[in-house]
């Protein structure tokens, strides 16, 4: 079993860095590559849902099913691009765009009432009734000057989340 990290050349690393707007350092990319190979147990070049779910800490996450749909079939470059929103070097705009993408399940650039409700359902499960969830969301939307029928776009998200001090940072272990 050879040392897999040696298969990444400087050229590869730079290409990946370009793809993720230099949000990760070269060492971090090597680390991520080792992790990617470790998770891709079948060596197929992508990490299957089953392989992701073998991480217990991921499997218990309320949003894991939704994230799996985004992670499905990503190759290494796309995997790094996915994670780049969590880099301390990523801009706030990048992070909020990522959150927006999680909401916008049909990728039409609009987040509707039902999109938000879907996420809220994942996050609260059986502990809030469907009816109560809708009431809560309607009320909160109206208090912020939106209605049940308004579709939020990315600039709305920027306005709402832009100054909330969102801390979405994950440190890549480098040895």
């Amino acid at each position, binding site marked *: 079993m050879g040392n897999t990290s040696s298969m990444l050349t400087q050229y590869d690393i730079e290409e990946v860095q370009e793809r993720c707007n230099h949000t990760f350092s070269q060492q971090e990319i090597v680390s991520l590559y080792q992790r990617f190979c470790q998770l891709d147990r079948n060596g197929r070049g992508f990490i299957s849902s089953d392989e992701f779910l073998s991480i217990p800490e991921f499997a218990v996450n309320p949003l894991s099913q939704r*994230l799996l749909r985004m992670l499905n079939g990503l190759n290494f470059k796309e995997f790094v691009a996915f994670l780049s929103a969590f880099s301390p070097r990523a801009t706030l705009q990048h992070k909020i765009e990522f959150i927006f993408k999680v909401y916008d399940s049909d990728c039409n650039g609009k987040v509707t009432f039902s999109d938000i409700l879907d996420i809220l359902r994942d996050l609260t499960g059986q502990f809030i009734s469907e009816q109560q969830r809708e009431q809560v969301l309607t009320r909160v939307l109206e208090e912020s000057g939106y209605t049940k029928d308004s579709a939020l776009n990315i600039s709305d998200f920027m306005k709402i989340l832009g100054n909330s001090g969102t801390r979405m940072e994950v440190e890549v272990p480098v040895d």
Partner: protein
Amino acid sequence: MSSTTGRFRPSSSESDLDRPNIEDYLPSGSSIQQEPRGKLRLRDLLDISPTLTEAAGAIVDDSFTRCFKSNSPEPWNWNIYLFPLWCCGVVIRYFILFPVRVLVLTLGWIIFLSSYIPVHFLLKGHDRLRKKLERFLVELICSFFVASWTGVVKYHGPRPSMRPNQVFVANHTSMIDFIILEQMTAFAVIMQKHAGWVGLLQSTILESMGCIWFNRTESKDREIVARKLREHVQGADNPLLIFPEGTCVNNHYTVMFKKGAFELGCSVCPVAIKYNKIFVDAFWNSRKQSFTKHLLQLMTSWAVVCDVWYLEPQNMRSGETPIEFAERVRDIISARAGLKKVPWDGYLKHSRPSPKHRERKQQSFAESVLRRLEEK
């Protein structure tokens, strides 16, 4: 003293014998929500970054996968004058040491079988003598195994005594743990039933040691094992050895101990095993290699170096639950062997965590939303 504290629990606890609560190990209400206060606003609902961060953190690195990561040996041969030396080493290891070791092992087996079979069949009437001889022979063949990888084992602390009402628990790195401990004491062990030649040995020779086999996936087996465990602890005269982690861990971490061994109401004697990785990684990664391959890897290495500590026997304290007791013993073993503790059940290698854990997170979020909705 032990008999007063932990008399057997009713059988209802047997069904969850192998399912300790992860909540009992994790700090309460893990980091997902830091009790935000004040009126609920839209941004509080939309900001899902804490949950996303947790998910991404787990993808990048997680404590569970770390427990089962084999450490590849540090290459030291890429140098013009080290390389020839390394080549010499390879020649010695594969073409001198390995054949000699195979020879030693074969010799061991010949001696073992040629005495074990007559003892087993001819001494049918003299049970005590037969048992004694059989145990001696099993210890002997284990010594041959240890010799076949030039095991350099340092035993610390008093040798285990042969008396009833005690169980030995050890951390688990590879099946060779069992061989290393067995060469000193004829333990009866509880193990997963294996296939192939290991399974054959299990069902023939080791059976006579009072060893107990089970199938991890059979829930019916659990009850049978729990019953056999009790019978053995009370009746038999050789001590019982249990690997409460239930799976092999890479000797850097310990996963949760199953509480089965800790609710028998008898003394628990911790055994800590630490391997020195200088020549070979003794972790058996059963996903990557068969046990035969693992043994071959050990037999072609320079030596297997390890330390074994027999630690002070522990009894359940009054007011202590079996899980707390198990945790205390895990602390003792982890501290002695220098292992880090993780809050995961090793069986998660074969199954998914129960939805209970996710529901716990959902509940805390739901409660915080509802509470803040009330606030003005």
